[in-house]
């Protein structure tokens, strides 16, 4: 009797602690996003919560925010270019090292993943020094090159993971039936690892669009990108247009995520 009660206590306390901590964590994961969304519809010029009234005036104000629009356009261009390059480099790299069990493949894998561990800000500064030393002026192109280094690991990771699930017998069968290497790649390999590549590309795009540590050193007034522009506004004078811009970014993220989930099974690729 006493033993059963003790076991009950053990089970209940475990469930309670796990449940309570998880509930707090989930609350804090969602809460800030909701706050920004609601605040962005405020009718006043202050960031008070809850807003005294609701309106779309700050979203309308975005239409006149020329500098912010230019920054968003720059971000979009850079993210698209960086993602395209990351797909090319990452997929070919993954094909080379993903199926190999050799020691060199393991070592190369950790080298190519290292940009995720190294302080990105230090790398951004290193890239600035490098381009200055070899005499290449900063432009959107140099910014793209800097972003690719920190975005490639995402494509590499998801593509290698999907290659690991690819049955090598399929490739052998295709090759022994007379299909060439390229034909086999296009008709067998690519369709089977396509979702992995797409998930990686999505992550690379978001990582580039949101990147601050590298952009901080590789942009100037002409090539300003959106996250840096927003950071500066928040840092100097907090204005409600930031909330509207944030609201738009959140909605765009949710839409992109839904698309990535539908076409690439994003949540299954991430863990």
């Amino acid at each position, binding site marked *: 009797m006493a033993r059963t009660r003790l076991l009950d206590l*053990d*089970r209940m306390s*475990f*469930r309670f602690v*796990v*449940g*309570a*901590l*998880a509930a*707090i*964590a989930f609350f*804090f*994961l*969602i809460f*800030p*996003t909701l*706050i*920004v969304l609601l605040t962005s519809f405020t009718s006043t010029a202050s960031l008070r*919560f809850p807003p005294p009234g609701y309106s779309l005036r700050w979203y309308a104000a975005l239409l006149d925010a020329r500098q912010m629009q230019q920054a968003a356009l720059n971000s979009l261009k850079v993210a698209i270019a960086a993602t395209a390059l990351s797909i090319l*480099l990452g997929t*070919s*790299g993954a094909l*080379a*090292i993903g*199926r190999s069990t050799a020691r060199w493949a393991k070592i*190369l894998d950790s*080298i*190519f993943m290292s940009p995720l*561990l*190294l*302080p*990105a*800000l*230090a*790398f951004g*500064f*290193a890239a*600035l*020094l*490098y381009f200055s*030393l070899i005499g290449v002026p900063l432009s959107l192109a140099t910014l793209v090159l800097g972003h690719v*280094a920190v975005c490639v690991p995402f494509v590499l990771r998801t593509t290698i993971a999907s290659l690991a699930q690819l049955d090598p017998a399929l490739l052998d069968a295709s090759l022994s039936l007379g299909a060439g*290497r390229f034909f086999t790649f296009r008709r067998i390999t690519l369709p089977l690892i396509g979702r992995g590549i797409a998930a990686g590309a999505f992550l690379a795009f*978001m990582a580039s669009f*949101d990147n601050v540590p590298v952009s901080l*050193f590789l942009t100037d007034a002409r090539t300003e990108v959106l*996250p840096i522009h*927003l*950071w500066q506004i*928040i*840092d100097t004078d907090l204005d409600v247009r*930031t*909330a509207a811009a*944030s609201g738009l*970014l*959140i909605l765009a*993220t949710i839409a992109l995520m839904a698309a990535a989930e539908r076409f690439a099974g994003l*949540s299954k690729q*991430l*863990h």
Partner: protein
Amino acid sequence: MTAAPAADGPEWRLLLPLGAFFVLFFAAPLIVLLLVSLSDGLALNAFSLTHYARFLSDSFSLSILVDTLALGAKATAVCLLFGLPVAWVCVHASPRLRSLLLFLVILPILTSVVVRTFAWIVILGQQGILNKTFLSLGLIDAPLRLLFSEVGVVMVLAQVQMPLMVLPLITTLQRIDPNLADASRALGAGHWRTFRRVILPLWLPGLVAGCILVFAACTTAFVTQTLIGGARLVYMPLYIYQQAAGANNWPFAAAMSVLLMISVLLVVYLLNLCGRSRWATRHG
């Protein structure tokens, strides 16, 4: 095109583009960084360890490095405390609830860091939601100073980087055979003991991977550190940025960057080592 030997095809050639890119635009910049930190500027002459000596002998600079590493450690600890239960609930939820929970975990990491940090300013400010709630509940008499405090930075970093902890935790937890926990409980070990003696050791690889990712991200989180920490709380990223952009003191900033990199990699290495040795003593 003549057929290459089928067994060991020309696959290594596919590595050339990525390899060349990494040498040219990742390794080369880092080497330049190292060289600049050892010299007196982009002219790359007068090599010496002056800038390292200057940093390491200056107690103000040194305290910033220590604060930055401590900040990473604290935020990682908070992330771990909440990340473990979150991953546990995600794995044990019904398939439908699970995809919703996963969505909630992934959404923050894909939402702009600036946006997430901005949200916290609205929450933590003197007129913010937290202070207002506490005041109206009578828990405090005057608004707490949450913004521009270390507690605030740790809290926000933990929230912002949480997904980096949770995702590897979920991956590893899924691979643990549920029969092991059932067996342990059937044999009389309670939930807590089963968790500590059976689940946790098997979970260690994911735990170490999550800690490494969060720690690395927190030490370089420029946006969160500057916006929540304000001008009074200076961490390495802002310090490097100020030296590099403001004072145009590139060699010193380069030396600081190298020191930050080395310290972060050292912690990563130690975490890896700790994960492996614990693993070996229990299973070797």
